[in-house]
């Protein structure tokens, strides 16, 4: 087995959860990497939808922005932004939506708006963008977030989107899933101690009785992921 990074583990584990044929609302960064990896491995018929209006995008490399030209060139359809949010997202045509955030709480609520008070923020973050209605409009929300006690907090500084439909949180330490409405550690990545996950969580983290260990990335997954990244860097 090859060596791999924590980001690669996150992308691979998120990609595995995309079933073939799934319609995915994808953001930039790790979600885009995960969704494109899924499309290149076990889920060739998954449909990647970017909020810029590109439906069924099939980029050869990873876009820097959600509106890079290659997304439009390779898409099955390009629609306006009002159409994207009204007909496709609110219309209930998206299965999975990926979200990231600066903060998450134990119920899967997310903050991507401010750190500190709204009127006098310590850090003004970019804001919700598509997140509030993605969180309401898709069947399953997947969250990808690096696991630190600054991100996994007891109390959000601002609630940008609701956690009701969060099905999984993939971190660089493991996997959390809601159990009775509370995010619970159900798996750790190889080499990760459960205490490290506890220490990186700002609330008293519940741990599943049968804690699993995620499968490390296979050589096939790693090589697909790295060739995507190599094309992007080129």
């Amino acid at each position: 087995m090859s060596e791999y990074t924590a980001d690669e583990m996150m992308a691979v584990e998120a990609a595995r959860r995309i079933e073939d044929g799934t319609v995915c609302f994808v953001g930039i960064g790790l979600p885009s990497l995960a969704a494109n990896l899924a499309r290149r491995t076990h889920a060739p018929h998954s449909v990647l939808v970017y909020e810029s209006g590109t439906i069924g995008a099939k980029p050869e490399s990873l876009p820097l922005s959600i509106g890079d030209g290659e997304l439009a060139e390779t898409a099955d359809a390009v629609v306006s932004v009002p159409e994207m949010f009204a007909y496709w997202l609110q219309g209930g045509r998206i299965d999975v939506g990926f979200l990231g955030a600066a903060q998450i709480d134990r119920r899967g609520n997310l903050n991507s708006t401010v750190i500190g008070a709204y009127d006098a923020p310590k850090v003004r973050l970019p804001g919700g963008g598509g997140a509030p209605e993605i969180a309401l409009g898709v069947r399953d929300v997947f969250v990808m977030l690096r696991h630190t006690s600054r991100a996994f907090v007891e109390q959000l500084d601002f609630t940008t989107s609701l956690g009701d439909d969060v099905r999984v949180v993939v971190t660089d330490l493991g996997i959390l899933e809601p159990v009775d409405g509370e995010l619970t550690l159900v798996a750790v990545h190889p080499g990760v101690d459960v205490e490290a996950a506890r220490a990186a969580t700002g609330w008293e983290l519940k741990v599943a009785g049968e804690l699993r260990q995620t499968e490390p990335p296979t050589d096939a997954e790693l090589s697909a992921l790295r060739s995507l990244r190599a094309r992007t860097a080129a």
Partner: protein
Amino acid sequence: MPIVPLRDAVSDLVRDGDVVALEGFTHLIPHAAGHELIRQGRRDLTLVRMTPDIVYDQLIGMGCARKLVFSWGGNPGVGSLHRLRDAVENGWPQPLELEEHSHAGMAAAWAAGAANLPFGVLRGYRGGDLPARTRVAAVTCPFTGERLAAVPAHHPDVGIVHAQRADRDGNVQLWGILGVQKETVLSSSRSLVTVEEIVDELTPVPGAIVLPSWVVDAVCVAPRGAHPSYAHGYYERDNDFYVAWDAISRDRDAFRAWMDEHVLATVAA
């Protein structure tokens, strides 16, 4: 509708204190027009845009704006907009009032604006802290009783977008990622479109839309007028510049020096 120099169009159409939207969803962002606003020293603008990025960071950092209506204010794939943050966090160069929405809310407000309706309606703004911080109200569907969110329609004084090309009569053609370009022009009292080039005939392009000349107040030729954003079929997004902007904009003096050299000391095409 005449094809006019950008300097004249901005001077005729945009006034201090106006509500101005320079739209573009990563694509066809009217940077050249934004730079002309800065050169002409417009003040007290209310800037509207779903995804304020570098050109809004520049307008804010140069003291042109008193308010921002938006849904996502970052440097895509890179991080923060440092001039926007400095204005919000430290009031530099002046305080910036925020009216913050979600993308779905802004999109509904644009569609309502284009349709000349007073508000847009959507299933959104449910829960969370945003509804208490923005202009949104609940409405009840008269047919089903469902509670829905109403957002005030966008009706800017001036809407500005970039497009690929126009013909000599001023009919505008654009394609690729369409964003809210059409809605911006149709929602605004006055509109300005910059284009890459003027052509004799608008030949068909897959997925292209046309804005008839009679809904546009001014068409201006601005080659590479979207850079560092892009014009599909003409040039690609300058991703390296978006990355470089992070360092340029982080420091007030470096930002001012860059603006002096690349914007204030230049003239519109």
